[in-house]
């Protein structure tokens, strides 16, 4: 069983004419369809209630036995028209609604909206508040990545690593709960600052948690990352190369795993990210092909290391001062103007095109959901995969349906 990890890219073939005599991902390119056997195609309805679609995604599969010939994602089951809601509420009222977009990385969603509005309104954010935002968002990112990695393992049939990662995630959620008062949906970041300050005791707890996560990383690696079956299942499977990513505007860990060094925290620093010393890990990693499922999984684990580094630096270098710009009242409204600011959420780049006409309500908040853009590759990338590989693709892209449908 050793040495069967593929090194050759075979999937992600955009040319439908090559589907005949499908080449499977992995080095054993099996001619699945003997020409002299008449086979019928099956149409599967995968989702909206399917354990591996991570929510209410519906994918219509056209398959030949186990081989996916076509996968059409159909979205919109969770559409709540977040943008319309934002247009009908005052600035302060609207904020908690963006939390509901990506409920696994809610703080980063808040930051996405708040940064644009502050840019358009020219709001200065106190340095301490910027650092607090960084601490909380990175905590949220680690938690989200732990969830995504564990979920990917679960999709591959490995139950135990999932629960190990959940152990750390749960402690992280408790930390967030202590400061923000919410476990998943926080409403913590406000225009011009954050709601609550952290205490020195909390800082100690948080640093201890960072150490614990780091200490447990080898556990995940031993159980999952270097497991031979897992490597065989995910290396060289469902390759998303750099040009496909650019074409589909795929961002975040998926883009970086494809070897593109783009991280908005480094490239266009916001909220004082320029103060911190961290690396941007990019694929290819130790095994597999650049941009395959395993690399996307590995990318997230590597990013956890970097995020923990940032949290530690931010807590240690936390400046004194205000946590909230005093000029922002409940009835605050932005002066006329527009802005487009993007920030790095766990699943990719969240951005908001914000337009204000000076009125009580925002005129337009166009939110970019990174998962929305990322999941669009499914149609192209799934051709010729086995159903098991399709699950690997879905799990390694890591989508949140709340953000796809908004």
């Amino acid at each position, binding site marked *: 069983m050793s040495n069967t990890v593929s090194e050759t890219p075979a999937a992600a073939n955009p040319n439908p004419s090559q589907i005949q005599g499908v080449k499977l991902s992995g080095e054993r390119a099996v001619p699945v369809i003997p020409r002299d056997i008449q086979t019928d195609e099956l149409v599967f309805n995968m989702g909206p209630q399917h354990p591996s679609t991570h929510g209410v995604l519906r994918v219509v599969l056209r398959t030949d036995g186990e081989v996916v010939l076509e996968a059409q994602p159909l979205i919109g089951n969770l559409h709540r028209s977040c943008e319309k809601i934002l247009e009908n509420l005052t600035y302060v009222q609207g904020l908690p609604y963006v939390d509901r977009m990506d409920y696994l990385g809610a703080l980063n969603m808040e930051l996405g909206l708040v940064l644009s509005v502050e840019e358009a309104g020219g709001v200065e954010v106190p340095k301490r508040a910027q650092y607090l935002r960084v601490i909380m968002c990175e905590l949220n990112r680690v938690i989200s990545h732990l969830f995504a990695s564990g979920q990917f393992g679960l*999709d591959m049939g490995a*139950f135990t690593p999932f629960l190990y990662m959940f152990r750390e995630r749960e402690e992280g959620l408790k930390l967030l709960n202590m400061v923000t008062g919410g476990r998943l949906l926080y409403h913590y970041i406000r225009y011009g600052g954050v709601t609550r300050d952290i205490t020195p005791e909390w800082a100690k707890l948080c640093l201890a948690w960072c150490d614990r996560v780091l200490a447990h990383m080898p556990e995940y690696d031993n159980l999952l990352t270097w497991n031979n*079956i897992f490597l065989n299942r995910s290396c060289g499977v469902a390759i998303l190369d750099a040009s496909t990513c650019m074409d589909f505007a795929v961002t975040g860990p998926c883009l970086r795993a494809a070897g593109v060094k783009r991280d908005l925290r480094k490239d266009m620093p916001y909220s004082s990210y320029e103060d911190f010393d961290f690396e941007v890990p990019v694929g290819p990693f130790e095994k597999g092909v650049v941009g395959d499922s395993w690399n996307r999984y590995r990318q997230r684990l590597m990013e956890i290391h970097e995020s923990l580094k940032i949290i530690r630096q931010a807590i240690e270098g936390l400046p004194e001062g205000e946590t909230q710009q005093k000029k922002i009242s409940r009835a605050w409204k932005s002066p006329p103007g527009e802005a487009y600011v993007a920030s790095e959420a766990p699943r990719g780049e969240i951005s908001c095109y914000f337009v204000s006409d000076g009125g009580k309500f925002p005129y337009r908040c166009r939110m970019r959901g990174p998962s929305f853009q990322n999941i669009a590759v499914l149609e192209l990338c799934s051709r010729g995969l086995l159903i098991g590989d399709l699950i690997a693709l879905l799990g390694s892209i890591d989508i949140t349906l709340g953000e796809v449908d908004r």
Partner: protein
Amino acid sequence: MLAVVDHATPLSAHIANWLAAFVGLEPIWVFHAVGALVVATGVLALVVTPVGLGGVYLERKLAGRIQNRRGPNRVGPYGLLQTLADGVKLLSKEDIIHRGADAPLFRLAPYIVFLSAFAGFVVLPFWPGGAPANLDVGIFYFLALIGLETIGIVMAGWSSNNKWSLLGSMREVAQVISYELPLGIVAMCPVIVAGTMSLSGITEVQAGPIWKWFVFRDGIWAIVMVPAFLVFYVSGLAAAKRAPFDLPEAESELIAGFHTEYSGMRFGMFFLPEYALMLSISAVTSVLFLGGYHDPLGMSAEGGSMHGVWWWGLIWFFSKTTILFLSQLILRWTLPRLRIDQVMYLCYKVLLPIAMACLVATAFLRLFFS
């Protein structure tokens, strides 16, 4: 016509007489039928209960320990009655047969699976002379039952009228039929050495201390028997649909595979056989390679202090079976799942050649060394 009540006859004869009159048959046949029913109930109570309460409980508790959880601990002492509570829950749930299903097949499928999984226990030699039915073709009978179970699962997948179920049952067919080849071939290695297909006979040949067991037999046999044992173990995992070969019911791919549409006790009829099959395959592995009911010191062999003592044999039989069973559980909670093409690759390109080589090597060794 009523039979005359004779006070000298035992009560059972009265009942038989009465029933005979009721159905219009000779009393002796009814007597046999009732007797068979009583035995069947007894076997079910003796076998299904340990499987249900023991196997399922063990799996949950072990999974809990592996996963930083406690496992069941609320119902009964140490959560021992959790499975019973679940059984009651399953019994009281609504039995749904959806409109598109092929109802007769849908109803029949769980019984076939249940029966074929539990019927395997009949040939197991639990202690010296303790096989309920000492068939001369015991190992063949057992392998045939594994094949029979597949039919039940195909019926379930087909009659469910659900594409995911169909895919699951097709995976089951492909997998179990493929893995029966290495399973059957390596099972012949002990048969060649023992010269019998009866499981009791195979155990008796292994009488003596640990180096008489087939897997280590006289040192020299280990060359073929250790690979054969490993092939049998892996193929057994696949035949029992246990992780990492649980593709037919891969919950993250096929929702629940062939039993997606089953609810209530019909689902339970698929759930329990899985554990039964695991236990019986572990038992057969221990009989074929690990000396069955013999202890490692040879006390149960001819002339040993424990020769022919039934409880001594039972202890060793069950401890070996349980160790193999536990190893299956640990694998289940440690490994991810294979992909269908990898499952087939492993069977035809790895296990089958090894199995063939083992068979040929065993035959040669038998010629020259015995």
